[in-house]
């Protein structure tokens, strides 16, 4: 039983390292879209790993921890996608390093409507 707890603790530590790196990326990246990239991926992965480690430590808590993992894994990408799309329509600028922007080209060619309300 002791070995399971140690495995769980190591997994939790890895998760918290991922969370820390995500927050570091949030500070270092140059524009909103890159921040969302690192923020979403690392925070989802970090939280899921933290909860997975706790499942190893307390096998009796598996129900609620599993619900939390599922919920974070589904809701976090959706909310950041909605945020990114609406920020783009609102006109948050891209960074200078950006090489190509197909969405702006298509909006200019009238292939895509500039605002849509399909949430």
């Amino acid at each position, binding site marked *: 039983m002791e070995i399971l707890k140690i495995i769980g603790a190591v997994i939790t530590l890895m998760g918290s390292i991922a969370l820390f790196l995500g927050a570091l990326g949030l500070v270092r990246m140059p524009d909103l879209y*890159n921040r969302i990239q*690192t923020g979403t991926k690392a925070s989802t992965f970090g939280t899921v790993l933290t909860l997975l480690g706790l499942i190893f430590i307390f096998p009796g808590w598996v129900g609620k921890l599993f619900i939390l993992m599922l919920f974070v894994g589904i809701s976090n990408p959706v909310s950041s996608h909605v945020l*990114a799309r609406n920020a783009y329509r609102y006109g948050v600028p891209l960074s200078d390093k950006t090489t*190509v922007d197909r*969405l702006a080209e298509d909006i200019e060619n009238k292939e895509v409507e500039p605002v849509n309300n399909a949430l």
Partner: protein
Amino acid sequence: MNVKNIGISFVILFGFWLLLNGTFTTPIIVTGLIVSLIIPMFFCARCDVFADMRLTPKAFLYTFIYLFVFAFELVKANLDVTRRVISPKLPINPGIVKVKTKLKSKMARMILANSITLTPGTFTLAIEKKYLYIHWIDVQDKDVEAATKEIVQKFEKYLEVIYG
């Protein structure tokens, strides 16, 4: 068609109820059965969220494989993020590319968009009919076809079997 929707919603709700309670006594199971049968009847009378899902053994097998592929990509994505964040020069080359998907069902498109968001260096910015606009942190190919091959196809081949 509608029975299928209500049935799948019922299974999901009942599973959540059991996980949330964590105990298996008779009153809890009976309450859960009643509540999770009534809620889909009210809220899922006309919905078609699960209508395209196939319930064949092959679809179940592919769901399982898909979960493994997805977990592997998730780990790869985080190693990638780690490398980019730690290195002092910040090696990014971002851009928005356009990719095309063959999937028709709404649920399959949503799962595809979510998976793309959680995999290495890509992020779904907008969905417009059969085109997806992807923010790519390290653009390797600006062409629509090549980007589709690079980003979408590794998930699409499984989702096609599950949702058709």
